[in-house]
């Protein structure tokens, strides 16, 4: 379920791109500092967007200094000058989510994927153990989300709304943590809710054909069983994704952002839309034949 919330580079200004990359590299560095070098392979764009948004709403935010990338010395990257609560929280969330994702892969998948997951499990497990100490509140929330998601899958709910609810509620809680103003908290919760729902939905869209083949749970597979015309499925998916992104955009307009507004606007208005197009184009290009 990772790597869908991204900026749309074509519309991003260079100065904003530098900040966007900088946040990504800073999160990588934070993961290394808090959880050891191995944990840096859990880095992904979704959590770097979380770090970016939380930094944009924080009272202060450090600048970046230019350093060399530890993994690719030919590449320069910008690193935040000091640790921030936003980066720390994103790193904790990253470790906790990745740990459960790896466990999920081991339970569901087979072959190479399962082997890779088994290989990284000890590392993720150790990191998760550390995350439980660092931020017990957050790991408890992630645990509750995983359990709620498992319930949805066990009951094989056909409702898209109910299937997306656990991840929506998780992001609502993560985005609103630490906010004291009740009105702003509500806006942040709505923003997180819509974003979490969007991430769940696009993941379900991405896995639709595989889940049908393997008879795995997917709300879209229950709604559109084998044999539905791909055009009809695609239209529904695209509508659901856009509708959710539109509500996220409405909440975004009310967020009190102290900086980085253009970057977040780019992600919310262009990034989500284009990512949805990319995923659906990829999945439906060779599926013009009936499922």
């Amino acid at each position, binding site marked *: 379920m990772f790597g869908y919330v991204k900026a749309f580079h074509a*519309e991003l200004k260079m100065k904003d791109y530098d900040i966007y990359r900088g946040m990504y590299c800073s999160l990588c560095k934070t993961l290394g500092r808090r959880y050891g070098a191995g944990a840096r392979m859990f880095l992904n764009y979704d959590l770097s967007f979380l770090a970016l948004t939380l930094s944009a709403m924080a009272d202060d935010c450090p600048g970046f200094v230019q350093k060399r990338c530890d993994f690719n010395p030919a590449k320069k990257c910008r690193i935040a000058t000091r640790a921030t609560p936003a980066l720390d929280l994103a790193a904790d969330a990253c470790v906790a989510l990745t740990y459960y994702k790896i466990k999920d892969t081991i339970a569901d998948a087979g072959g190479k994927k399962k082997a890779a997951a088994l290989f990284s499990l000890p590392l993720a497990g150790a990191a998760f153990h550390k995350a439980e100490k660092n931020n017990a509140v957050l790991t408890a929330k992630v645990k509750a989300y995983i359990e709620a998601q498992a319930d949805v899958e066990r009951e094989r709910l056909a409702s898209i*709304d109910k299937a997306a609810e656990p991840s929506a509620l998780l992001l609502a809680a993560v985005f609103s943590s630490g906010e004291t103003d009740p009105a702003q908290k509500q806006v942040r919760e709505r923003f997180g809710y819509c974003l979490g729902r969007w991430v769940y939905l696009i993941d379900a869209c991405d896995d639709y054909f595989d889940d049908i083949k393997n008879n795995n749970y997917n709300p879209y597979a229950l709604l559109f069983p084998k044999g539905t015309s791909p055009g009809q499925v695609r239209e529904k998916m695209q509508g659901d994704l856009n509708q959710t992104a539109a509500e996220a*955009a409405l*909440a975004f307009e009310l967020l009190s952002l102290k900086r980085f507004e253009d970057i977040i606007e780019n992600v919310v208005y262009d990034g989500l839309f284009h990512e949805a197009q990319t995923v659906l184009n990829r999945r439906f290009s060779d599926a013009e034949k009936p499922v």
Partner: protein
Amino acid sequence: MQRNPYEVLGIDPNATDDQLKDAYKRLARKFQADEYKASPLSEIAKQKMRELDEAYDAIVQSRRTAQSGYGGQARQQAYSADYSYGGAQQSAYPDIRAKISANRIDDAETLLDGIPPNMRDAEWNYLKGFISQQRGWFDEAERYFTSACEMDPSNIEYASAFNRVRNNRTGGYRTARGRGRQNSRECSGCDVCSGLLCADCCCECMGGDCISCC
């Protein structure tokens, strides 16, 4: 807690009147009341709009007194007007609507679910959709709004909720509120012809001709 009006508008105190007006328009588009109609954030949007209006009025007022003969216009009423669709409507469920506007969503839903299925009319569907929308259950919301519109196509309130959802589903939200810079100007067949006609007029002024027949 009164914030500095210039801070609310996000501009420098030395900004020109035009910059002030632009900032006002840009922010007013963000908080348009009708966009938030079925959103749980509608009260917050209204509050932000009020703050913005007050800040703008305060600045205009202070500038007027500072320099007599200031020709600034009062803000455009269109943005700050509270939208009310189709005037005062006769509602069959006034108590349920009251609960919804008091943010008691669960109570409202309990009352709605208590209405027997054979008596569920267009407004019932609309209110159900409204509640789903508030909860973030957009899939259900779309279905209820669609049924409400099918049952009573002439109702403006239901139609506007339905149209907003339709528009969002096709990606229309991206050009709303002055966002979406990506809509590039395309050159259509009309643009080509009108361009040629313009060129022809210019040529004729200068004594030449580019399209001989006109």
